[in-house]
């Protein structure tokens, strides 16, 4: 870590903002090419069925329609959506890039209409006649577990994969425990919902057999590799270009069927092809997330020392295993108990297929869910044991003495590798959170009725994994005008990496930030890159920038040595200037003007970072309606080192508000026939400006990350992870007089009202 920094750690206003604020952002929808065709997807209207016939003739007769693509136009075997992690059982459940024989969810692409304008393409898509023999779908996971019908003929089960995480001897610990408690929980299906829908613009350059795909996000290099394989092209003949991206949150930027279909159309017809998802199709087409039911059991001593936890999770992953469809499943199995030192664990998680939109990741995948299960169990146990729920946490939280703390291993091996919590003292963030929140003052409110509303307070402790490996790359180039262009493999998805990376580069080179320009994401900038997911951009990309900067200064030293005919050891570099002892000097800009001054840096690490923290919520519940007001909410995390407190704080607060949507209102509801009942932003209710005004976030930097040169831990997902836990615990606290123990999300007013009425009736009888 550098001793002195000018930019790192300061709340620098973002460089990106100038274009965004003036309407000069460049999003995929803004892009136009001469002669471009527009694509519209024809999607399955039924949840499960056999395709009998796709008749494009009526559509082809319409004005402006250029072509219609169906599975018959694509060579067999049909390419399938790639997996991000290895797994021994998921291969049969990969999604073909277009439905050929069967459709398995409402919204699955069956055909692509190409026309002169988006309007004409959309008009014509409705005229493609689909004859589909409907079959009985598996809409809920319970039915699917039974295996009738099977979603994929030739397989033996609708369970795509089962993960286990075991350590110690949970069975023995449960047998010996003085207190055990079992409870069921569920989290509803919802989605990341970026404000910009997805979109792509693909161009085929016939002269040199090259494909360009604009509209990349999250992991352009992985998608390029997948696309090159499907197209039978060398990787270097495919470029994924990243523009401004209107939000990612885990869902955007994965390889989707449309990635292939739009590129295929561009190559087949030799025209640029543009596709912009509309909001209605977004709901059936983008990855869903979070739907999981859990059966959790805790064993502890009477003082609250937890001796074991075990349980089974059932994740409804939809109709196919998408690139990271297994990530939430494996995460909920491995991470549910992580802030705590629990010696005996035995968890099993099933990824269960259903005839619904395939699921993937959403900010804090598996962790939001697991945190809810674990933290609710702690509060339920503390209440029944008659002990303080905070003392119970203090007794079990990981401390500095426990670090590094080896995580429970997981089977099957999915390449995640062995891992450990890297540094920290998890009690510190809890205590700070309680202090910021004013827990001791608010304690008197718990369970009281004031002005017709019951008040309650609750906490949730969490960890957030970040900085996932294996590598990230950066390249630097001194430009003729004396500035430095920094190319990074990390992707921008709205998190402000142009600013963050410029801060890091400027400090490492000791030059002003306005001399740095950051270019990111696109595959034509670097030989290799990985992208932005799992809170890795700052840690991995930022560390690569540090290494590239060291190499650039080394190159400067060598250039100066040559120029002044001395050895590199005679040169000292500071402030971006190389000095010889005799007083001669040369700046980066001067050296770059005459010599090509470039450098590369690759940071490799398989050691993840673990940000951790705690959240506290104060809620009031109207027992007559079941509506909840969040009166106060505080989240404290320790990120090791904050590169930019302004952007970090923004991410934490924004993530927290997303979490309130998960707790109270966002819900992708299907009917019994597998029709998605959500079709617009009027049905799918994300938080509004009037909903959650009282949120505070505090960031600590007490325990730097031990494994990277910045000391930074991945952050940005943590804000959402403890929301379900803290808020439902606060609701249980508010309604403690009735012993209402919420276990199922979302806690809509009707659902909470019903819980209150049921508890009242039970008390009366």
């Amino acid at each position: 870590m550098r001793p002195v920094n000018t930019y790192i750690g300061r709340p620098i206003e973002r460089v990106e903002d100038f274009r965004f604020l003036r309407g000069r952002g460049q999003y995929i929808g803004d892009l136009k090419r001469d002669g471009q065709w527009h694509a519209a997807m024809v999607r399955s209207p039924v949840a499960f069925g056999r395709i009998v016939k796709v008749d494009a003739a009526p559509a082809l007769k319409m004005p402006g329609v250029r072509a219609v693509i169906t599975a018959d136009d694509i060579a067999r075997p049909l390419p399938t959506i790639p997996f991000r992690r290895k797994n021994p059982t998921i291969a049969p459940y990969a999604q073909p890039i277009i439905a050929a024989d069967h459709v398995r969810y409402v919204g699955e692409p069956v055909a692509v209409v190409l026309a002169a304008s988006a309007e004409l393409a959309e008009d014509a898509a409705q005229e493609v006649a689909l004859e589909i023999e409907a079959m009985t779908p598996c809409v809920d996971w319970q039915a699917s577990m039974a295996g009738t019908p099977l979603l994929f003929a030739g397989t033996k089960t609708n369970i795509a994969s089962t993960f286990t995480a075991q350590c110690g001897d949970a069975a023995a610990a449960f047998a010996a425990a003085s207190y055990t408690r079992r409870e069921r929980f569920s989290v509803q299906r919802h989605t990341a919902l970026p404000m910009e829908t997805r979109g792509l613009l693909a161009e085929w350059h016939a002269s040199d057999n090259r494909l360009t795909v604009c509209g990349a996000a999250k992991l352009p290099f992985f998608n390029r590799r997948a696309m090159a394989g499907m197209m039978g092209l060398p990787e270097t003949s495919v470029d994924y270009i990243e523009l401004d991206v209107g939000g990612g949150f885990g869902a955007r930027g994965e390889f989707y069927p449309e990635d292939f279909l739009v590129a295929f159309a561009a190559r087949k017809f030799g025209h640029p092809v543009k596709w912009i998802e509309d909001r209605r199709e977004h709901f059936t087409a983008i990855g869903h997330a979070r739907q999981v039911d859990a059966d959790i059991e805790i064993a502890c001593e009477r003082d609250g020392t937890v001796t074991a936890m075990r349980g089974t999770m059932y994740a409804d992953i939809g109709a196919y295993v998408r690139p990271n469809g297994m990530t939430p499943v494996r995460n909920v199995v491995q991470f549910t108990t992580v802030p705590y030192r629990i010696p005996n664990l035995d968890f099993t998680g099933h990824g269960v297929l259903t005839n619904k939109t395939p699921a993937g990741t959403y900010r804090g995948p598996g962790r939001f869910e697991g945190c809810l299960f674990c933290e609710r169990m702690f509060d339920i146990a503390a209440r029944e044991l008659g002990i303080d729920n905070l003392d119970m946490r203090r007794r079990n939280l990981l401390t500095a003495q426990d670090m590094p703390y080896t995580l429970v291993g997981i089977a099957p091996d999915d390449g995640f590798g062995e891992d450990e919590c890297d540094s920290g003292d998890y009690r510190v963030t809890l205590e700070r959170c309680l202090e910021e929140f004013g827990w001791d003052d608010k304690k008197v409110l718990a369970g009281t009725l004031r002005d017709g509303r019951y008040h309650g307070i609750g906490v949730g402790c969490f960890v957030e994994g970040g900085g996932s490996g294996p590598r990230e790359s950066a390249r630097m180039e001194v430009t003729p005008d004396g500035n430095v262009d920094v190319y990074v493999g990390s992707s921008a998805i709205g998190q402000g990496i142009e600013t963050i990376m410029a801060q890091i580069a400027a400090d490492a080179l000791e030059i002003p930030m306005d001399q740095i320009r950051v270019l990111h994401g696109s595959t034509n900038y670097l030989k290799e890159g990985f992208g932005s997911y799992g809170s890795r951009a700052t840690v991995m990309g930022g560390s690569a920038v540090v290494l590239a900067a060291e190499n650039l200064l080394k190159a400067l030293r060598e250039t100066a040595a040559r120029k002044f005919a001395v050895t590199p050891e005679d040169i000292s570099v500071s402030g971006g200037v190389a000095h010889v002892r005799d007083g001669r000097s040369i700046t980066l800009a001067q050296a770059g003007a005459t010599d090509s001054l470039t450098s590369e840096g690759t940071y490799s690490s398989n050691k993840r970072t673990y940000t951790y923290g705690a959240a506290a919520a104060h809620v009031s519940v109207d027992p007559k309606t079941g509506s909840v007001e969040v009166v106060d909410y505080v989240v404290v995390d320790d990120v090791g080192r904050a590169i930019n407190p302004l952007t970090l704080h923004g991410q934490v607060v924004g993530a927290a508000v997303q979490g309130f949507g998960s707790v109270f209102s966002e819900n992708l509801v299907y009917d019994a026939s597998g029709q998605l009942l959500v079709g617009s932003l009027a049905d799918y209710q994300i938080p509004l400006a009037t909903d959650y005004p009282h949120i505070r976030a505090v960031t600590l930097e007490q325990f730097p990350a031990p494994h990277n040169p910045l000391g930074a831990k991945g952050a940005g997902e943590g804000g959402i992870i403890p929301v379900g836990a803290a808020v439902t615990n606060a609701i249980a606290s508010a309604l403690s007089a009735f012993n209402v123990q919420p276990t199922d999300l979302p806690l809509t007013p009707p659902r909470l009202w019903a819980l209150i009425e049921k508890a009242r009736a039970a008390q009366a009888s």
Partner: protein
Amino acid sequence: MKLRFEINGKGIEADVAPRTTLCDCLREHLNLTGTHAGCEHGVCGACTVIVDGRAVRSCLLLAVQAAGASIVTVEGLADGDELSPLQKAFRKHHALQCGFCTPGMLTTLHALLSDEPTADEERIRDVLSGNLCRCTGYIPIVKAALEAREHYAKKQGSKAG
């Protein structure tokens, strides 16, 4: 059909099909891509523009309905390269992340604060509740709006004086 508007102070003509929305007209025909289409059903507010002083959803208005009107889009808020006080406050408070909802937030607030420079937090939140943001949690947007009020008050004061 041929339409005439005044957009960001300049007279502009467009030749569009009758079913073209104002949003598509701005984006596709006039290359004013700062106005964003987030839902095309009037819920998200990303496409908000100011038509004759009022903030409207350009995805729910046909271009022909705005013929002859004076329109302000996000591109018309800054003074050349100089950010407006509201835009500066957005930057200072980190009231934008991905930037996609930002044009609609700015136009909505510009219309509100031009009319009501003393709008209080509750009023600001109430008006903003028609614009969706998925990144910020709205808190910094509200802070930025509160801070920008004094500039609008001054402007109104100087107009009245």
